[in-house]
């Protein structure tokens, strides 16, 4: 993974614009998926509304364009997204299991339609940003965010906080009786997972310069993140990397020529992995490693 980091760091200096753009998108998905895992993989509360933070960040960037320095807006987007999560977190996290899944989905759609209504009431159909920073600058912003997301997930995964999250994932009532501050931990995980997508959304608004509400609140973004995380498996930072790379390659191959086919394959991947490989590629690798270790141990006996 360290090798990958170095490769991504030097990419803008050795590759052309198209490849840099592709690398940028890869880093974006990595940042989004890692941050999603901080909540959903660690606590088991699967969020289907991750895109709401992304969209809020993008919207903030677009409405404050050329009124504030863009780096400030990027940070602000993270803060605003986290604040939104803190605001809705308490009632939203009371809901459990599959209802949480559809609630987060509904919440993202609700925010989308509210902003759509607001935009159409003010007469704006779409917005365009002029004078955005250079691609390389945007690339390094995204690189920093991907790095931040991976570090966050790694830290959470290894900390006592993460341990507490895992315990509430396995059995929330039991964790509570053992003294884990379940409500507080869930809320913290939720807020932490919201900040980075907000910043990612703001940066991507700079990249695409053309903003349409439906595009930045597209539920397919949430679904793709989930697919990448499930594909990768596990609850550490390794899984999402595998899942992101795999799905990203698939996406790049099919998106331009057969987008519908890509969606069908995505759906099929979701079904296959949920049914057969709930621990994703990481789980698959772990099982094979254990298998090999077992065979080695059996072979070592006389």
């Amino acid at each position, binding site marked *: 993974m360290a090798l990958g980091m170095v490769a991504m760091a030097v990419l803008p200096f050795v590759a052309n614009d198209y490849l840099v753009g592709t690398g940028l998108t890869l880093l974006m998905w990595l940042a989004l998926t890692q941050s999603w895992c901080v909540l959903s993989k660690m606590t088991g509360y699967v969020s289907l509304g991750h895109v709401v933070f992304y969209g809020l960040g993008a919207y903030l960037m677009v409405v404050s364009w050329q009124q504030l320095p863009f780096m400030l807006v990027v940070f602000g987007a993270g803060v605003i997204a986290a604040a939104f999560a803190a605001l809705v977190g308490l009632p939203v996290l009371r809901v459990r299991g599959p209802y949480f899944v559809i609630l987060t989905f509904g919440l993202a759609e609700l925010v989308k339609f509210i902003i759509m209504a607001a935009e*159409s009431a003010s007469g704006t159909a779409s917005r365009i940003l002029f004078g955005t920073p250079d691609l390389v600058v945007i690339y390094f912003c995204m690189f920093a965010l991907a790095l931040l997301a991976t570090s966050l997930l790694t830290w959470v995964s290894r900390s006592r906080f993460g341990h507490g999250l895992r315990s509430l994932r396995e059995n929330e009532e039991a964790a509570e009786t053992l003294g884990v501050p379940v409500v507080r931990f869930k809320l913290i995980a939720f807020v932490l997972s919201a900040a980075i997508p907000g910043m990612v959304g703001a940066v991507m608004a700079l990249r695409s310069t053309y903003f349409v509400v439906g595009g930045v609140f597209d539920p397919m973004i949430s679904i793709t993140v989930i697919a990448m995380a499930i594909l990768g498996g596990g609850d550490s930072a390794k899984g999402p990397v595998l899942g992101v790379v795999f799905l990203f390659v698939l996406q790049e191959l099919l998106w331009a020529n057969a987008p519908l086919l890509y969606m069908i394959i995505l759906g099929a991947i979701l079904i296959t992995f949920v049914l057969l490989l709930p621990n994703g590629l990481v789980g698959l690798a772990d099982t094979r490693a254990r298998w090999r270790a077992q065979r080695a141990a059996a072979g070592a006996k006389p």
Partner: protein
Amino acid sequence: MPVLDVLTSGQLLFAALVTGSVYALVALGLNLVYGTMRMLNVAHGDLVMLGAYAAYWAFSIAGISPLVAAPVVACLGALLGYALYKGLFRHLLAVAPADAGRMESNSLLLFFGLSIILQNAAAMLFTPNNRAYQYLDEVWRVGNVAMTGNRIAALLVAGATCIGVALFLGRSTAGLAMRSVIERREAAYIVGVDVDRVQWSSFALGFGSAALAGVLMSMLEQFSPFSGFPFTIAGFIVIILGGLGNVMAGLVAALLLGVIETYGVALTSANLRSVLLYGCFVGALLLFPNGLLARRSTRS
């Protein structure tokens, strides 16, 4: 329109009834599948969409009236449900992890994958364009309410089906078996109910009623491969408001939703229809994690 005029308009009442009855039919299937198997079928609306396309092709190519095609399409939907149950979902239940909540989240993702496949396969096969056709659209007038024939037909068919299913659940032995599985699955096993049969028949009934709702919907509005999704959301609102697994309360909640949507849009604006729908959805889940008219049940 002045508020009082809106509230007493017979026209809007009729529209609310029609919308509500179609929602009731959609929610019925969703409720049965959830009640017996604790699975939230996110692909339900896409079955509605498939039913709509089936009726469309039957009418456009063979000239078959949707009212005649309806029972056939419903049976096809039921068959699909049966096949999916035997092929896919029995497997999922067999490998279920110990935690019921996790299995439910997993099954939701499964249905989501199915939904994506259905929508995009339909878009590939039928093109993503909107489709519609004219049928039974002579206008009948009662007082100052203008009703088109197709809306009256939709209301009657949806209403009759819902009442029929309610009678089935209330009066027949098979219906009683289904209710027992909905209420307490393990106990149903103990008293000798063939739970597997109840499950596939609820799947079949659920998918069949979704397909039927699709046929009705195809008469009323234009549709595309992606128009199933709002029906899924509406179905969810209804079953959450009525309490998951509670079929009768679901019927009431569906009419309520039809009223909220129709009168809400009339009082505000058509732009806000989605805001209203999702607002109700989020509100319902946040305020009533156990359903508005829910019966108390020890199983969460």
